């Protein structure tokens, strides 16, 4: 029916433009919200038809009224009560909370995802929504075939053939059915009846380790949140000990009363299960969290864990001793990394190269440190080096008597420096065996570019490191560093 026709029939009809993106965002938010019940939450794939035929989900009735979420609540019911009563309470809690946020919803729980899907959409009695006592086979029999999540053409053919209820399919021989309609009807039927496993693909990889803490009254004070975090941490660290792992990453999620969620994460540079230390890292981050109108639930999870190595060094060779391995330094580095970022807390590593700017590289703290004495060995192999090196050599204007002579004077940043003493040259050739920036190696018949380095003292006592680049007739001079 067109909008104009509808308006004629119902003059005060409320209309709103379709916003598939906003619908998508809303369902994603709802799915995040459902993390409070289980980490295994998936947005209903809306039947394969929509995905395969690339239909606009709205025209196929995917989003909007028919949107769905699949939750695997296996083993989650005990949080709400013992045994079956807990699962029933979970379902009631879910519907009640959603309707409190003004969502119209129907939730069903069953042994298989397929049965729950069909029940939520087509069950006639409220009592049928929770785990039908007679089993999925009986419960599905009375439902229309639409409940099988079939492609539209198959569905239409079924209806034409008079197969209206799912129960109508039970007595049919399987082989002819498969020959006539393909795999889909049988697969769907088997999935709904639990003969084939149908795993739920969670939106976020579910963490193996997680703890939750629900509050009778919403909390909002920073001290309360910190206290709750430290309780959660203690519980999680006990789990770590049993599994002999340590956390590399931890995430805390605050479920606010208004249905929104705030998360923050910390990382460590080696497996850690010391709850006071982890708490110290969290203290940095808790300030960023906004409790909003109050927090009713907190979940702490460890998305990334590693095998516990304890205080032992990961590397067996005694030679590769980590000078920063002392606990204090690692913890300090973690705290600093949290505040300044991975790239801003680094250590210096030597690299096998002759080019001065390539010799030194930086690495995050989690990378293995330089072998003890590697630096001094490297330093003893090379000539005098500056204590500070310019990241990018700066061009200088140079006055020299002859092209191949050291300079008499140079001008750097508009300051003229008279040269008093010179040491050099030290010739450093480009490394021909390394690929050029273009990705090609240097042709064999080309002489690699060389730099002639000079250590220079000006008449004021300042010591500089300059080099001449290129052929003598067109040499360019650069300042590359400052000596002590």
């Amino acid at each position: 029916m067109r909008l104009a026709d509808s308006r004629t029939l119902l003059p005060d009809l409320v209309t709103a433009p379709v916003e598939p993106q906003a619908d998508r965002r809303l369902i994603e938010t709802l799915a995040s919200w459902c993390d409070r019940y289980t980490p295994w939450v998936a947005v209903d794939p809306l039947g394969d038809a929509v995905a395969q035929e690339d239909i606009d989900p709205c025209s196929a009735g995917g989003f909007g009224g028919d949107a769905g979420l699949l939750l695997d609540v296996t083993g989650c019911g005990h949080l709400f009560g013992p045994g079956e009563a807990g699962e029933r309470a979970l379902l009631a809690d879910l519907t009640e909370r959603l309707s409190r946020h003004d969502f119209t919803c129907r939730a069903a729980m069953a042994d298989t995802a397929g049965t729950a899907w069909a029940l939520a959409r087509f069950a006639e009695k409220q009592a049928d929504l929770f785990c039908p006592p007679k089993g999925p086979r009986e419960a599905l029999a009375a439902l229309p075939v639409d409940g099988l999540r079939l492609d539209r053409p198959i569905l239409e053919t079924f209806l034409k053939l008079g197969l209206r209820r799912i129960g109508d399919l039970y007595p049919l021989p399987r082989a002819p059915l498969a020959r006539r309609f393909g795999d889909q009807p049988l697969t769907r039927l088997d999935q709904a009846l639990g003969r084939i496993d149908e795993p739920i693909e969670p939106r976020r990889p579910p963490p193996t380790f997680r703890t939750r803490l629900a509050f009778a009254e919403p909390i909002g004070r920073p001290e309360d949140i910190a206290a709750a975090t430290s309780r959660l941490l203690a519980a999680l660290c006990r789990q770590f000990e049993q599994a002999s792992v340590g956390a590399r990453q931890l995430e805390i999620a605050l479920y606010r009363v208004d249905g929104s969620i705030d998360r923050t994460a910390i990382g460590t540079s080696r497996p850690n299960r010391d709850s006071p230390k982890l708490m110290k890292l969290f203290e940095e981050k808790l300030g960023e969290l906004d409790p909003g109108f109050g927090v009713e639930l907190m979940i702490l999870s460890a998305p990334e864990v590693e095998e516990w190595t304890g205080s032992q060094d990961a590397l067996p060779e005694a030679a590769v001793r980590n000078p920063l391995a002392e606990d204090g330094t690692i913890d300090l580095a973690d705290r600093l990394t949290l505040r300044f970022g991975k790239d801003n807390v680094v250590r210096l590593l030597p690299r096998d190269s002759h080019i001065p700017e390539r010799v030194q590289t930086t690495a995050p703290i989690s990378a293995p440190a330089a072998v003890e004495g590697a630096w001094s060995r490297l330093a003893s192999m090379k000539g005098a080096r500056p204590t500070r090196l310019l990241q990018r050599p700066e061009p200088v204007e140079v006055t020299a008597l002859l092209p191949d002579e050291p300079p008499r004077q140079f001008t750097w940043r508009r300051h003229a420096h008279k040269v008093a003493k010179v040491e050099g040259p030290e010739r450093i050739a480009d490394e021909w065996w390394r690929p050029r920036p273009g990705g090609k190696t240097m042709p064999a018949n080309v002489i690699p570019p060389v730099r002639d380095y000079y250590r220079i003292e000006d008449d004021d006592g300042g010591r500089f490191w300059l080099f001449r680049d290129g052929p003598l007739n067109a040499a360019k001079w650069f300042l590359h560093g400052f000596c002590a």
Partner: protein
Amino acid sequence: MSVISPNAFASPATDSQGPVLPPLLREQVRRLERAHSAERPGRAAAPLGLAEIDRLLPDGGLLTGALHEIEAGPSPSGRVAPHDGAALGFTAFLLGRLGPGTLLWCRQPSGADAALYAPALAAWFDPARLLMVTARRDEDLFWAMEEGLRTPGIAAVVGETRAADPTAGRRLSLAAEKNGVPALLLRPQPAPPQSVCATRWRVASAPSLDLTQSRWRVELRRNRFGMPSAEETPSWLLEWNDETRRLAVVSQAQHGSTGAPRRQRLVG
């Protein structure tokens, strides 16, 4: 009978009549005097190995639990030095005199400026001990330094910044004192002094005889707990030998001989 005289807290050595203070009490008095840290009794000061300088410093060396400031001074001609090579060299030398452990080096990002170059620093200490932190804001830099001072296993904390903040300086000094870890502020340019620092050095490069032997003009501009000296700001000409890796004080006679022709040229 017991009138508290101004001499009441004098050291027991000078007070021959009175009973010798028990070590605990002496430590308490020292702490009151803020000269030492009680936590690391054996490591109160790290001698520089230069008798002329150590003589003036408290406990014959660089106090480990204190804030020290090293600034790059102007060059001999009075021009602002274009870089702080000498001050950095002197800082690296001081770090080399301290005990083992991690060296936390805090700096501020500056695109054009030159970064530390480990192959040269290896002359003074193992650069593998360095933990480099880049903090954008002054507050963050001071925070990182303070965190470092409170961490066990840290040998020294260096802050490379132009920022001067009396409150931050005070906090750093207290944290250093409490944990017995030295905090060094390296100033690429002369900066407003931190009043709480134990020593303040001004280091500038000086013309050398030979390029393998760099010379630094080092002034001790503040020496909070040290011995008084004849000059107002004691200053030395130090020579770093690249080959023997030793720092030595150039005697006055030698230094006069190289200084004289320079002065003539400046006049002319």
